[in-house]
């Protein structure tokens, strides 16, 4: 297991390198001169020259990448063009907001999704199942920014229960978490239900019934445990999907997180910040899949055996 862990973490290195190459090259794909993209319009020739040296822009691309990567690894993410501050500072400000939002949304999706999925599976093809699956379908087909706006309209404007936007108090987190979480809940509920129904039909479940165990104990003690394995796998793979929802929802609720920073920087062509935001999101995705793989190995001895 420990050998596996080490190997699995080592696996992240090539993935990180691949991702960093992609993120690095974005700057060079964007139309226009990279220096123009890195500088404010109308900067002095001295500033241009300094920038060229700093990023090694007169050197071949692989060297430039090396310089950039070593800077990144030392925590130097460059200077924001618009804000004229170190990018690292901007990220440090935004990250906690996004972590809180993403983490809570993930928690909400998992708990609500598994709960609803279990209820639906236990009442298969009866009205609770139909109602939940109908709600789940609706929840996954509404654009998240729109859902956010509607929730805002209902709970903040009409009912006045919750703040409209911002990040001044914890109550401001409720609507964004709900907005992102509903999409995630739909995903988790659907997988939980399907995996539970599928697991219920397996041979070993028949044998559990034949051993005289009560149906509830079989469903919650054995079937659910199996159903959670694919739930964890897919959740880990799709962690980025939930974070992606966070990007748009942050903008809707004007929360000062990574998503808002990313969208703002994209529209302002502030590419050092864009690169840094993408790097953070990529790291979150990578850590998510790592966590998912570890959880899977913990939950399933067959996975452990295949790794040994």
């Amino acid at each position, binding site marked *: 297991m420990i050998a596996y862990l080490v*190997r699995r973490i080592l*696996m992240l290195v090539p993935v990180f390198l691949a991702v960093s190459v992609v993120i690095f090259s974005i700057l060079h794909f964007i139309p226009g001169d990279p220096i123009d993209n890195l500088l404010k319009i109308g900067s002095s020739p001295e500033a241009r020259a300094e920038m060229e040296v700093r990023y090694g822009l007169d050197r071949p691309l692989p060297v430039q990448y090396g310089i950039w990567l070593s800077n990144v690894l030392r925590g130097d993410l460059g200077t924001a063009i618009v804000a004229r501050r170190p990018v690292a500072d901007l990220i440090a400000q935004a990250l906690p907001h996004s972590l809180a939002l993403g983490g809570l949304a993930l928690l909400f999706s998992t708990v609500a999704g598994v709960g609803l999925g279990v209820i639906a599976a236990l009442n298969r093809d009866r009205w609770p199942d139909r109602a939940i699956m109908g709600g789940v379908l609706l929840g996954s087909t509404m654009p998240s920014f729109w859902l956010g706006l509607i929730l805002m309209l209902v709970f903040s404007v009409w009912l006045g229960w919750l703040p409209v936007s911002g990040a001044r108090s914890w109550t401001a987190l409720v609507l964004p978490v709900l907005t992102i979480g509903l999409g995630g809940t739909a995903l988790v509920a659907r997988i939980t239900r399907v995996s539970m129904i599928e697991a219920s039909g397996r041979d070993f479940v028949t044998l559990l019934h034949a051993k005289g165990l009560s149906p509830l104990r079989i469903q919650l003690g054995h079937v659910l445990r199996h159903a959670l394995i694919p739930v964890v796998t897919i959740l880990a793979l799709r962690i980025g999907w939930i974070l992606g929802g966070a990007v748009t929802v942050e903008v809707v609720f004007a929360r000062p997180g990574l998503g808002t920073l990313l969208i703002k920087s994209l529209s302002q062509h502030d590419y050092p910040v864009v690169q840094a935001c993408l790097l953070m999101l990529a790291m979150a995705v990578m850590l998510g899949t790592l966590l998912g793989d570890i959880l899977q190995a913990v939950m399933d001895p067959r996975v452990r055996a*295949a*790794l040994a």
Partner: protein
Amino acid sequence: MTPPPLIRIEGLSKRFQSGGGLFAPERKMWAVRDLSLAIGRGEALGVVGESGCGKSTLARLVLRLIEPTAGRIIFDGTEITALSPAALRRMRRRMAMVFQDPYSSLDPRYTVTQVLAEPFRIQRQPLPAGAIAALLASVGLPDALAESHPHQLSGGQRQRVGIARALALHPEFVVLDEPTASLDVSIQAQIIALLADLRDRMGLTYLFISHDLGLVRYFCQRIVVMYLGAVVEVLPDTAAAPRHPYTEALMQSGFAPDPGRRRSVVPLTGEIPSPFALPPGCAFAGRCPRVTDRCRAERPLLSGDGGHPVACFHPL
């Protein structure tokens, strides 16, 4: 002078590898190890063994559906292990195979007619008028099924379609890979009777793969017994008494449908070892009642005296 065999297999071996990536350690096994055989024209040669003995790998190697690691296969004087891909494809009209699983051996999108026309299309031969009807009749299927899809047929009917497809181009040699293992006994007997009729009518040569020694003894003239990739015994005729303890155990394990002949057999203890971790000596040593130290240290080779070869230091 005996006529030359239709198929000659010399020193055939196949090694499989798995893993070897970042996540799994590399594992190697010999699915078939140093196997030599000859099949005479018109003969039905049986191959029996339990799971993991390499009999299905052998079936695919003989037709070069998978590439051998070592060894040669000579079909009617042509070394098919040395043929170019194009020449091999042309050669395939002379040999055919019937598969174990009648459910996945037919493309679910094809009608019976399309299945039976496929060999002609692949070998770029004109489809003779009435050929489909003749094929259906030869395997005892009614014309009415010609436009059916596989999912509308029973298991036995599908297997008949599979046999008709194999025989469409009048091959000389047919490999039968457990053709009845997924069928009910009543249908198994039908299919066996059909295969016997076809052999007589078309002068076919069969390589019949099965786990059922009783069935092979009924259907074949000569029987090869395999255990973990190697031939342990070749029974020259169906009445021959077993000489290898494993063959003996296989015979004892069959249940005769006769309550008058109940015997209290002592079944083999232990189970087939993993082919990935074979013992150095005889592969059967761990389960053999006649085992000695020599068996554990040294691998017995197939040696034939009196036309009844056996790979055992202590034959019965």
